[in-house]
């Protein structure tokens, strides 16, 4: 792939994989100089790609405590020793989460197992919470980061059973949430009141990019090369607005593929 270093053309479908497209689509969500909270895996690829392309001044915060590390080797998790290489500060969770709550973060990349039309995400349990079919990893920082970041981008697997009318458990808050202790459904703005800062802005899957309208309802923005509106609809479990679809997601360039495989993840930790 070394020959792709200076090739800024759009790659042909046979030259890239879905995960490459996801990393690149994620990277495009980052503006320069932003402070970005990112989790393990694809988020790391996406933000690091952004730093190598449109957002060289973006800072990555990992919840284990590293701030704007510039890893020489891709970390395998947010707690990895590689995260703090050339970091501005490396401390711990109390510090970075306090900064989050104070309002110092601009955006975040997160994952999820299930999502509903309002962007409510489940990473806790499938089935009845009190007697689950499948216990998942749990909230981690997903709820917290999504609660208080102005913009959150979810990167997820697209399946009909994951894009649900109602998720089995709301781990992470979308645009319409339950106002506890009453449990009444309210807008995110109402639930967070003066602490409202924004919310889920995009969902990037293996098939498409979704965004949210002014009522916080998910719509199709672009579908990936190889997919189409119908295929996307078949893999969404709720009624999806496709009227605003802008067409195909822009594929990666060869230069971006070069970066991904030779600079960002040459060891093949997340891509191979």
């Amino acid at each position, binding site marked *: 792939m070394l020959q792709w270093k200076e090739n800024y053309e759009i790659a042909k479908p046979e030259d890239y994989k879905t995960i490459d497209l996801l990393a690149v689509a994620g990277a495009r969500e980052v503006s320069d100089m932003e402070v970005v909270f990112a989790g*393990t*895996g694809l988020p790391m690829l996406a933000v690091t790609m952004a730093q190598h392309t449109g957002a060289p001044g973006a800072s990555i915060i990992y*919840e*284990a405590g590293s701030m704007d590390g510039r890893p020489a*080797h891709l970390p*395998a*998790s947010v*707690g*990895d*020793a*590689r995260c*703090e*290489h050339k970091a501005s500060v*490396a*401390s*711990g*969770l*109390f510090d970075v*989460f306090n900064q989050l*709550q104070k309002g110092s973060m601009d955006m975040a990349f997160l994952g999820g197992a299930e999502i509903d039309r309002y962007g409510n995400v489940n990473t806790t*349990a499938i089935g009845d*919470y*009190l*007697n689950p079919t*499948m*216990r*998942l*990893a*749990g*909230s*981690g*920082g*997903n*709820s*917290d980061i999504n*609660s*208080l970041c102005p913009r959150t981008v979810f990167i997820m697997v697209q399946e009909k059973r994951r894009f649900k009318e109602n998720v089995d458990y*709301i*781990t*992470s*808050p979308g645009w319409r*949430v*339950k*106002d*506890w*202790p009453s*449990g009444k459904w*309210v807008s*995110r703005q109402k*639930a*967070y*009141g*003066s*602490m409202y800062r924004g919310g889920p802005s995009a969902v990037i899957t293996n098939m498409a990019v979704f965004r949210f309208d002014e009522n916080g309802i998910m719509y199709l923005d672009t579908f990936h090369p190889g997919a189409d509106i119908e295929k996307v609809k078949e893999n969404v479990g709720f009624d999806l607005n496709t009227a605003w679809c802008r067409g195909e997601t822009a594929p990666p360039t060869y230069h971006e593929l070069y970066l991904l495989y030779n600079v960002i993840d*040459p*060891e*093949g*930790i*997340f891509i*191979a």
Partner: protein
Amino acid sequence: MSTGKDKLMTVPEAVSKFVRDGDMLTFSGFTIWRRPMAVVYEIVRQQKKDLHLVEVNSGTHGEVLIGAGCVKIWESSFMGHELYGKIGANLSRKVSNDEILVEDYSHVHMVYRLAAGAMGVPFLPTYCALGTDILNPEYDVLGRAGFRDGSNPRIPAQKFGYQEDKFYGGQKVLNVPAASPNVCIAHVQQVGDEGTVKVKGQRYTDSEAMKAADKLVVVAEEIVPEEVIRQEPNDNLIPHYLVDAIVEQPWGAHPTGCFGCYEVDGEFIRDFYSKTKTQEGFDAWAEEWITKVSDFNEYLNKLGFNHLDNLRVNTAMNYSLRVKRGAK
């Protein structure tokens, strides 16, 4: 406060002296980093029961304790082995079988619960996770099980509290209850011979966890003279007078990683995770790696020199440049 010499002990001594059935425990580290595995294995060996884990997040250490049936209650925000196992399969199975009580909080909730414990206050306020099912009163598992009646002074009467902010405009605030475990078991790089603790690399929630607990057991890669560790007091995390037990156990966090010392043993954890998919699988694994080895040094020897030495870090980078991590 005790002197350094009183505090010095072995892993088995630390477990038998400081970990009792029914205790609330917390740990150093983050998912698969700097977990006190030598002590965790010894807890299994000594067959401690009814433990109540309260931790910011869990990982391989938690899966060992849960798989072995040592844990009655688990309060946390996350269980998994990162890249080497997406969920905790022992936890998952035991939740479905009603063999463990799980109380879910968010990451910030758990950090703040231990921070409150460390600060000596009964709660801390936060805005995190408003609108989520974490706050759903139907999902107050300890409450449903009747544990919020005050009979256990370490279990709060409520899972959460709410109040209005009367200072700046009336916004609703969530209060999370303090957590003050009986014991924190920590694995660190260095401890002074009187107990001063130095942690290298990211500190995760070590400070909050260690200070929240009534008793603090510190396992270190090496015990060093206090006069040396005190040359840079700004670099130290915990003063000696807060430390109750000092244990030297090199590689004591294996298979989790230890900044500046050794890498995560991903291969070992991936194998462990695959075994945990059934109870029988875990039991066989535990027999092989815990109960059939007499102590942690025998475990290390069983792993073998070449395997471990391959995990040793490059000291310029604080992580390994030799271990194979990805597909290439």
